[in-house]
């Protein structure tokens, strides 16, 4: 793998919108060309070389690895829309890291701000710290959020993580999130997301969930009243075929949604045994 190294000279006072930093934009360019790439600092157009020391080279997109050092907590949109290659960020990073990316991998060795991996289309986002709110969520007004790919967060994620996540079994799209602990409204309006929480989870997990599975290995502050308890299970089969073992209490829902696939049979009153719309909480 060919490496390009970026080092932030000084933490910018105003947010720097660095959606230009992707392997797609760097490929086939010399260091001098990369330094000339334009980005927005407030309303001013500046050059990448004004803010970063750059070294290395790039040839093929899938063979490109960008390593960024420094406190990037005021640098937004790194890796937005990228389709291949790798980005490693050593430090905290600002909003929208890896948002709408289609392929490749982004690793953050620090904390990420809000909207990390928002509307992910594919690829992998790994955050070895905490993440802000709206991880993998749909942008305002969009009805289809994260469609594919994986997000791993070692620490906690904020509120409304994976809102409007949109997976599909026939389409073989299984958007997945693994996180340490989660805030409120985890997987709200989920249409087939797979969410695994290693620790605890705040209120209203799986609100308005239509399809998908949420597994919480710790405690949940409060379960929504519209979730119905099914019973205890020893093994879980996730929508993508993966299996998890351990003692879990299975709930179905969200039964307040009209379109819910885990329907209640009007004649027998039983809850449909389909694998959709499930919440598992450690017993």
């Amino acid at each position, binding site marked *: 793998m060919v490496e390009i190294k970026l080092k932030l000279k000084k933490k910018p006072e105003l947010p720097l919108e660095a959606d230009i930093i992707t392997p797609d934009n760097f490929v086939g360019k010399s260091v001098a060309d990369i330094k000339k790439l334009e980005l927005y*600092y407030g*309303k001013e157009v500046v050059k990448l070389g004004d803010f970063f020391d750059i070294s290395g080279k790039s040839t093929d997109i899938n063979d490109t690895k960008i390593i960024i050092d420094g406190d990037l907590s005021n640098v937004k949109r790194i890796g937005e829309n990228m389709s291949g290659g790798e980005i490693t960020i050593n430090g905290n990073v600002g909003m929208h890291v890896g948002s709408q990316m289609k392929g490749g991998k982004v690793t953050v060795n620090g904390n990420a701000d809000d909207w990390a991996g928002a509307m992910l289309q594919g690829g992998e986002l790994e955050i070895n710290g905490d993440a802000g709110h709206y991880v993998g969520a749909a942008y*305002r*007004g969009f*009805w289809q959020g994260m469609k594919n790919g994986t997000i791993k967060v070692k620490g906690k994620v904020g509120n409304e993580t994976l809102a409007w996540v949109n997976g599909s079994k026939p389409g073989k799209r299984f958007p997945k999130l693994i996180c340490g602990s989660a805030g409120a409204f985890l997987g709200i309006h989920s249409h087939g997301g797979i969410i695994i929480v290693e620790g605890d989870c705040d209120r209203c997990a799986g*609100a308005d969930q239509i399809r998908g599975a949420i597994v919480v290995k710790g405690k949940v502050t409060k379960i929504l009243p519209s979730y119905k308890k099914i019973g205890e299970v020893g093994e879980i089969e996730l929508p993508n075929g993966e299996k998890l073992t351990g003692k879990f209490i299975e709930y179905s829902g969200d039964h*307040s949604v009209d379109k819910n696939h885990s329907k209640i049979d009007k004649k027998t009153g039983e809850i449909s045994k389909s694998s959709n719309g499930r919440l598992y909480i450690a017993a």
Partner: protein
Amino acid sequence: MVERKIKTVYDVVCPFCGTLCDDLEVDIDIKEDSVIEVRNGCQIGTKKFFSSNPSGHRYLKPRIKANGEHKEVSWDEALDAAADILVKAKRPLLYGFSSTECEAQSKGVELAEILGAILDNTASVCHGPSLLAIQDVGAPLSTLGEYKNRADLVIFWGSNPVHAHPRHLGRYSEFVRGYFRKDGRNDRFIIVVDPRNTHTAQIADLYIQVKPNEDYELINAIRATLRGVELDAKEVSGVSIEKIRELVEMLKLCNFGVIFFGMGLTQTLAHHRNIDAAICLTRELNDHTKFLLEPMRGHYNVTGANQVFTWNTGYAYSIDFSRGYPRYNPGEFSSVDLLIKDEVDSSLIVASDPASNFPAAAVKNLFKHPLISIEPHETPTSAFADVVLPAAFAGIECEGTAYRMDKVPLRLRKVKEAPGECLSDKDILEKLIEKVKEKLGE
């Protein structure tokens, strides 16, 4: 006794709250050009008319801060200083706009576009969450006349109109006689859902006390019960399941229901998700009967600000022009978040007082950078402003258009002249745009 010459202006639209009452009568002393009597208005609306009278805290001339003190200057000098601040800024913020008329708001959009600024209105600290929810799941809304003539079940959820919109009850929702509700109050069943036993709750037929910040769970339980699901829980958010079932029956059996919701839903925990759930509930209730909902907007023209911004840029609030085209993301481009993160380097506040309403951390950063205030009288914001541009009261001292909470536009009237050198917000922004263009060499 000194003889007074009085002029009465009829059918005045009240520029205070979103109810925008249009039947006020205002008596003006012609000689002194001051308001001496307001009829038909509520307490808060009437007070606004009186506050336009000459007083010690009305600004009569533009001011610039020099050596920590305000000094009166000419319009030219003040506009020049203001334009200087805005042109030099890398990330200016334009905030306010909800208590002025639509023509001034559209000038604000123009200025923001020229400057590449961030444009926001007070919806971002009040009914912004309602707009977010509407963008997510749509909204079944109507005009207030429909509710007045048809509604037989009225729910006030997290709103207290007795104090916030005093004439709403008498004009549209509770006591008024409608075409199909000939007996007024007796023809309507009023439900109030609120953590506090408010004065609105005390005149309701049914009061449901919900635990603070747990509205989402209650709406969720109502929705599930409406679908015929037997809930596992015995009690949700402090309300028993029996009571929820009773409520659902009531909702299903009414002829025409409406939910009026206020800041009790939008600004408690879960914010826009409360509205999201309330909208979904309303939508599902339409399988059984006719049901609508309506946000109780606060400022008289905050709806207008959302409308004007939307038809100009596509977005209702929290708009960023820094890339030359409008982008929208509340939480990233909304004023409070920007100020707390210290991401703006100058601000222009139009007809608003963020210093009294924003969190302390945000206000601290607001005062750290150059600040311009377009304001009729002294407020905590204008007192710390570097440039103060004195404005006339829209709807009292100048004409304009305002949108009622149900998005009905009404023409504001001018009842008296503005004192001193005050200009309308629209004129001030127009002159400022000219100055800014001059400085940018356009």
